[in-house]
């Protein structure tokens, strides 16, 4: 038996013994997701137990080095763990922008001191991070951001405004892009800096979205004092860090609405449209939409698997995450259009207990942001055209 088979057997047994039954059910409510942080609360005892057991094994972030509280797994082992978790429907024990976005950037660009300070608090779910990227006048053209960081001795003094900051009102720390050299070309005067959201001068204001929820905030900085040692990478070279982080963000977003969890679309549709004598959905057009959706969904998950394997084999293209982000988010929007069509009038209820306060229409509306956040679909296609296809022009 190969080492990997052995690892799979042990992992399967450990998960079987340690993942509480409640943590194997699909996530249906916001509080089913555990984000960690200073002010966090567990929604249930099972959620707490599951988180703590996984944390103690280093499996909140299985592929990070052990010294930072990760699991030290190689890519093949991490894949096995994902597969075994998926097999029993195990929920992620911890969700975190620290894991998906900041961590990879710190591992590449951070100093030893920065890594030692921040990574263990991410793996242990102690600090919840938010991302200060977009500004009111810097959306797709992110590099035109204007939030100023002025040098004052050993500190920077930060003034400006961010927008679409996910969960800024719950976050403990922020990783933030600021302009440290206003005279330089737009990509060359940006720094990537970390600071505590309880610092004097930071305030947040939730933005009410079309879903009726407020996952994003406006975030204001009024003379926030931050030590220069909190800059990640070189001062004025923050764009490199920002771009690297975006690759990870895009990979994360392309995996949203992950597929293998929850009831199959065909069954969900059968609840509302019914079936004919042969068990087929009583809406032939909807049935064919679902079938072609599922063809594309299955193919995308092959591509996601292949992207990991290509990267491992050193054959991946760094811009490929943009391709996956584009397709994954467009597909997720399609999925929710199908779900809304399948649900018919039942899927329109916004407040009733029956509809769990409109969980489906709110989720449907939320997906519309998928192809905007983290780089719009149009920006993604532009990146593919220029960086992968090498097409001419600006």
């Amino acid at each position, binding site marked *: 038996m190969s080492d990997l088979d052995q690892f799979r057997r042990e992992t399967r047994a450990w998960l079987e013994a340690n993942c509480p039954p409640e943590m194997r059910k699909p996530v249906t409510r916001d509080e089913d997701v555990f984000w960690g942080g200073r002010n966090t609360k567990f929604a249930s005892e099972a959620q707490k137990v599951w988180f703590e057991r996984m944390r103690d094994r280093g499996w909140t972030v299985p592929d990070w080095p052990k010294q930072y509280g990760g699991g030290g797994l190689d890519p093949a082992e991490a894949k096995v763990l994902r597969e075994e978790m998926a097999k029993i429907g195990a929920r992620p024990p911890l969700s975190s922008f620290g894991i998906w976005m900041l961590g990879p950037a710190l591992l590449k660009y951070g100093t030893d001191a920065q890594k030692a300070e921040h990574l263990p608090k991410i793996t242990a779910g102690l600090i919840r991070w938010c991302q200060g990227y977009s500004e009111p006048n810097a959306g797709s053209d992110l590099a035109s951001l204007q939030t100023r960081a002025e040098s004052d001795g050993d500190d920077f003094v930060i003034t400006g405004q961010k927008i679409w900051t996910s969960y800024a009102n719950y976050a403990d720390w922020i990783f933030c892009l600021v302009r440290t050299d206003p005279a330089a070309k737009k990509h060359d005067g940006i720094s990537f800096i970390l600071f505590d959201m309880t610092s004097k001068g930071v305030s947040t204001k939730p933005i009410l979205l079309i879903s009726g929820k407020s996952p994003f905030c406006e975030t204001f900085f009024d003379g926030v004092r931050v030590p220069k040692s909190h800059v990640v990478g070189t001062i004025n070279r923050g764009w490199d860090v920002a771009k690297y982080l975006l690759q990870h963000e895009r990979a994360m977003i392309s995996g949203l609405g992950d597929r293998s969890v929850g009831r*199959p*679309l*065909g*069954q969900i*549709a*059968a609840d509302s449209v019914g*079936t004919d004598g042969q*068990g*087929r*959905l009583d809406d032939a057009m909807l*049935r*064919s939409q*679902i*079938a*072609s959706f*599922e*063809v*594309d969904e*299955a*193919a*995308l998950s*092959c*591509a996601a*698997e*292949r992207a990991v*394997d*290509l990267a*491992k*084999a050193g*054959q991946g293209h760094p811009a*490929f995450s943009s*391709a996956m982000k*584009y*397709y994954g988010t467009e597909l997720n929007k399609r999925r929710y259009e199908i779900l809304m069509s399948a649900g018919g009038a039942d899927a329109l209820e916004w407040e009733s207990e029956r509809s769990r306060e409109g969980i489906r229409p709110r989720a449907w509306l939320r997906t519309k942001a998928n192809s905007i956040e983290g780089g719009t679909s*149009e920006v*993604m*296609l*532009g990146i*593919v*055209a*220029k960086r*992968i*296809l*090498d*097409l*001419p*022009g*600006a």
Partner: protein
Amino acid sequence: MPLVLTEEQSMLRDSARGLISDKAPIAHLRQLRDGKDADGFSRALWKTFAEMGFAGLLVPEAFGGSGLGCVEAGVVMEEIGRTLMPSPFLSTAVVGASALSRGGSEEQKSAYLPKIADGSLLTALAIDEGAKHRPLHTALQAVRAGNGFKLSGAKAFVVDGHVADLLIVAARSAGNAGDRNGLTLFLVDPKAKGVAIERTVMVDAHNAARITFDNVEVNADGVLGEVDGGAALLEGVLNIGRGAVASEMVGLSEEVFGRTVTYLKERKQFGKLIGEFQALQHRAAQLYIDIEITRAAVLKALQALDNDVDKAGAAVAVAKARAGTTATLAVQEGVQMHGGMGMTDQFDIGFFMKRARVAQELFGDSNFHAEQLAEGKGY
């Protein structure tokens, strides 16, 4: 298993690409078409294919082949897709070899497999009867007669039907059209009494035939696999063929895409390279993404076939459905972006469009396979 080619598979690809691009560029197909070649392919080239071990790729080593798998067959098919080389590789080396090695008795295997591997025997699978691929609706009758059967009925879209030395015929020996039970596969000599073969020149200038069977006598030893229980064997063989055609379509799509992107970087209008226009850049990027996703799905299906043919159905359905829609998009965008030049026969791009249409129909189109997936999932 990682979803990337192994080193050996990459080497196989390189050697197939070397041979095919050298000996059978599009000009080769054009020449066969314009010369109204009686065979529709080059026998000399097929001999070279056999000498390089490609004809016996899927033939077990015990019968003179290399005993490789569907991933390797897919690698060769992809290269065939790049130049649209007409060749019995699909009909014989993939479908014929699979049918015989999976369903054949020891006698049948010894009689035919070594000849497939050395390039001296060509086979053709006769399956479709109507305009669309509906294997379970097979109605060609097999009636017991003495020690064997008599076959009556008609087949269409039989790839390489007019050059085959051996026909593999799906027939109904019991039950009714649509039933899973009651299907039997037969090995039939194309020269047998009652067999009439009409070559049907297709839009893509590749081989196909209509074949009628009028009380054709087949001995009991002409049965391939089980009497009445041939559905599972047939499905397995068809799935291997589908995986191969999907690979051909990936190669075809990528070649068309490559030529199109090159054109976008050369052609000037309004004082600019047309590749500078965002409208075209985004469409090119979408097509690239589509092809990459399809490539992953096809490799997954080929690996699934090598793992267990009987469990690969869903993966193959996804692959063939995706390959069909992707190739259709690729050739349409290819012609459109080449503008008027794309409409000319002199330009190669039209050959790809024609072949994509045929490959889409072959062994079930995208709708057929999406339907298979829906049925399998029970909705």
